[in-house]
């Protein structure tokens, strides 16, 4: 290969980027005549970011959490502070939301967030401390409570505490939670990305799982960015930018939608309209003001999450 590019990504995006990399390699060959090899690193996205800070020389990052990209700026000064402005849609070429996977026939009749606080329902989702997936779930529930209880902070806290108490298992990652729910038969509902829920159903066709998308949920962005310092050093800056920009192309968007992600491209949106029911998406700004404050108020050591989990 003439050039090689290292993409540091989250752990469940392997198939996605395996397809996309093929697409991009063709695209790049057509465009420049050069062959390009894309190397992939997958793992929990916080750990991935950490590896980059500690010296993993990735050119681009494609994560499922904004904070993990932010940290590359804050801790390593590896990319500019305004990285979100560099690509359309706040550098998030696709997005998803939190959905429920319930057992065949939805026996507990789970429809919305308040069902998850019911005493007879036990849920499964990953540990918000170790997994972005878990963090989104937590924020979605919290946002829902804010909507319901308004300014009544005590009621909000009480709701979220109950919600957290109904959790049967806190796996460290999304995949572990899925295994727990599907293979170990623990819990009545699995909370994860909508994109994942559909993958799971495809993976286990004979379990008869059903998807429930709550009326209100959280906008889960999938930020991408060029790690400029590294890309520059590797002489890949141009290639890296092209790699991310191409994600916004119609073909790529179609490919992403094929992996159950919601996309912004309207043509593609229309094509996949049945698959993605409309719903109210809460943003981080609505819930916590910003990712930064969400991290310090909710997830930091001793923050809201810790308080609500304390017994």
């Amino acid at each position, binding site marked *: 290969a003439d050039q090689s590019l290292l993409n540091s990504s989250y752990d469940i995006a392997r*198939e996605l980027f395996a397809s996309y990399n093929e697409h991009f390699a063709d695209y790049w060959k057509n465009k420049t005549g050069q062959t390009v090899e894309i190397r992939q690193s*997958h793992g929990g996205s916080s750990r991935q970011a950490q*590896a980059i800070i*500690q*010296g*993993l020389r990735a050119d681009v990052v494609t994560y499922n959490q904004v904070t993990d990209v932010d940290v590359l700026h804050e801790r390593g000064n590896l990319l500019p502070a305004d990285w979100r402005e560099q690509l359309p849609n706040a550098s998030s070429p696709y997005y998803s939301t939190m959905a429920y996977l319930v057992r065949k026939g939805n026996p507990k009749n789970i429809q919305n967030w308040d069902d998850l606080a019911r005493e007879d329902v036990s849920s499964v989702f990953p540990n918000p401390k170790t997994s972005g997936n878990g963090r989104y779930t937590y924020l979605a529930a919290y946002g829902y409570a804010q909507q319901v209880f308004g300014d009544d902070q005590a009621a909000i806290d009480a709701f979220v505490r109950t919600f957290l108490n109904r959790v049967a298992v806190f796996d460290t990652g999304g*995949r572990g939670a899925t*295994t727990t729910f599907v293979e170990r038969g623990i819990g009545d509902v699995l909370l994860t990305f909508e994109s994942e829920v559909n993958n799971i159903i495809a993976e286990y066709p004979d379990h008869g799982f059903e998807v429930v998308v709550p009326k209100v949920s959280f906008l889960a962005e999938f930020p991408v960015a060029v790690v400029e310092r590294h890309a520059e050093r590797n002489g890949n800056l141009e290639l890296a930018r092209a790699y991310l920009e191409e994600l916004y192309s119609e073909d790529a968007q179609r490919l992403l939608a094929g992996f159950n992600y919601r996309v912004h491209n309207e043509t593609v949106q229309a094509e996949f309209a049945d698959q993605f029911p409309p719903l109210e998406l809460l943003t981080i700004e609505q819930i916590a003001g910003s990712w930064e404050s969400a991290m310090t108020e909710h997830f930091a050591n001793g923050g809201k999450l810790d308080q609500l989990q304390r017994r």
Partner: protein
Amino acid sequence: MRTASHLRVGDQPWVKWSLISLALTLVGLLLVVPLVAIFAQAFSGGLQTYVANLTDYYTLRAIGLTLFVAALTVPINLVFGVFLAWLVTRFEFPGRKLLITLIDIPFAVSPVVAGLLYLLLYGSNGWLGGWLMDQDIQLMFSWPGILMVTVFVTCPFVARELIPLMQQQGREEEEAGVTLGASGWQLFRRVTLPNIQWALIYGVVLTNARAVGEFGAVSVVSGNIRGETNTLPLHVELLYQDYNVVGAFTSASLLAGIALLTLLVKSFIEWRQMRQRAALSEEEV
């Protein structure tokens, strides 16, 4: 040794057989069934899937890396283990006991912490890492880092096998060799090595098993680059995270296979040793 005809505790048949059955049951439940479970999962997709999973490009790369790291780790620890054992069993010097204790540290350190230790030192935020970065030397998140933590985790095995044996054998034979005019290398090759060879091989076998199977420490410093810094145990995790349960267990079964092979080699070594000893004592005058 005439154990057979001694009057010993617990030799009544009913005690003996109930203890044996209890032990066999426990071994079955604790060790055999998990082993069987791994293979059962691996073959749950049929033989073809198994072969397909095994010959997957990234799996092959992971096998390659794992074997590569093991192939480097073993000689490094072999050399170190032999020198250390030679040092502490053949010489008296202040600090000797401390040295013997130090070598046990990796047993006491959690693998994750071990990885962390290296990351803190050689990562680009660590003290050496910054300098290394400037020199454009990448240790962490590439195979040298994996090699380093693997060496750390496995370094006690060879030394621990050799030290008690060499202590027990004493230094008389080597002294005899010296009085007969042997040089250092001749002494080691012709006198010491033949006496410790089985212990050495056993140490190597254990080192290899652990090197191949190390997960915690490696996962911290690997960087998880598919096909590059993904060792077999990490590959198992990756596949598992990726809904490829059968694939994950295929790789796991490979590791279990290596483990079994290792144990087999080890038993074979022990068996040979025992036979040798028995043969010798039989002919004893």
